[in-house]
């Protein structure tokens, strides 16, 4: 049986096509999911793609968090299904309280779009198994609300438990606390990050590197071995 990985489209999602493509290049079957549909169509994992869902009108990710599809995604994520939130998807995951903290407007108030160097801090999550801890990768970053924030106690807890999954290298692009680019939940099945691995899966486009592909192969291996 082919592993099925779903990608949710909300109104305003932009990177669903790239995410579906990344899933296919990794060797899984991409399954488009619609925000109004509670049914996850027997997928084994879900990607919440980047963009500006519901225009980010209230707060980034705040309205999508209450969409029908999220009801099922939240329940399944709590039951152990791998869920990856990229950029706007990361914002949705914090708004849904599947990941701690919150995302705020970039400290310099500008939209950032650049190649971003990252260090993989945790290679034990469902989405990072094909990296090694300490590995440095480069993937595109583009966001307006990328400043990760949590209280000191939560930050200390994340550090102590190894739940800071990715950290920015060579400059913090948005004022994110402790240079945090991505985090994981305690179980390691839910991961959120601001940069876009799905834009770095083919040598012909983007950075010209394929540093983002291991996200999608990691989860595939994890699911096949499960």
């Amino acid at each position, binding site marked *: 049986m082919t592993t099925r990985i779903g990608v949710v489209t909300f109104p305003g999602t932009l990177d669903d096509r790239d995410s579906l493509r990344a899933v296919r290049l990794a060797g899984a079957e991409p399954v488009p999911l619609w925000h109004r549909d509670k049914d996850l169509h027997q997928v084994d994992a879900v990607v919440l793609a980047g963009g500006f869902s519901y225009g980010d009108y209230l707060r980034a990710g705040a309205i999508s968090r209450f969409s029908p599809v999220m009801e099922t995604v939240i329940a399944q994520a709590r039951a152990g299904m791998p869920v990856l939130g990229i950029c706007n998807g990361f914002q949705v995951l914090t708004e849904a309280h599947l990941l701690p903290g*919150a995302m705020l407007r970039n400290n310099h108030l500008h939209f950032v779009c650049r190649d971003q160097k990252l260090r993989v801090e945790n290679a034990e999550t469902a989405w990072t198994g094909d990296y090694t801890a300490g590995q440095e990768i480069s993937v595109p970053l583009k966001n307006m609300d990328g400043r990760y*924030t949590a209280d000191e106690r939560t930050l200390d807890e994340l550090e102590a438990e190894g739940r800071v999954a990715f950290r920015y290298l060579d400059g913090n692009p948005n004022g994110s606390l402790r240079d945090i680019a991505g985090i994981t939940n305690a179980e390691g099945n839910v991961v959120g990050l601001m940069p876009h691995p799905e834009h770095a899966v083919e040598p012909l486009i983007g950075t010209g590197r394929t540093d983002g592909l291991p996200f999608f192969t990691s989860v595939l291996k994890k699911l096949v071995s499960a």
Partner: protein
Amino acid sequence: MARVVVDVMLKPEILDPQGQAVQRALPRLGFEGISDVRQGKRFELEVEGPVDQAALDRIHTMAETFLANTVIEDFTVKVEA
């Protein structure tokens, strides 16, 4: 119809670059003597029926779960005469 106002502000310890940008612009525009600005959101809710305790409780829940993100924001609920 009664109006209930929900004010949402970033918590005091959270950096507010929008407020800071506004504050920095003030002297350029000739407005002196403002040492800090913080920018928030105001929701004006037109409520059908009486604004009794039950209605206020519902609005409080709405503010807590949706209008404000209590990880980063505080909110107040008040009834406007």
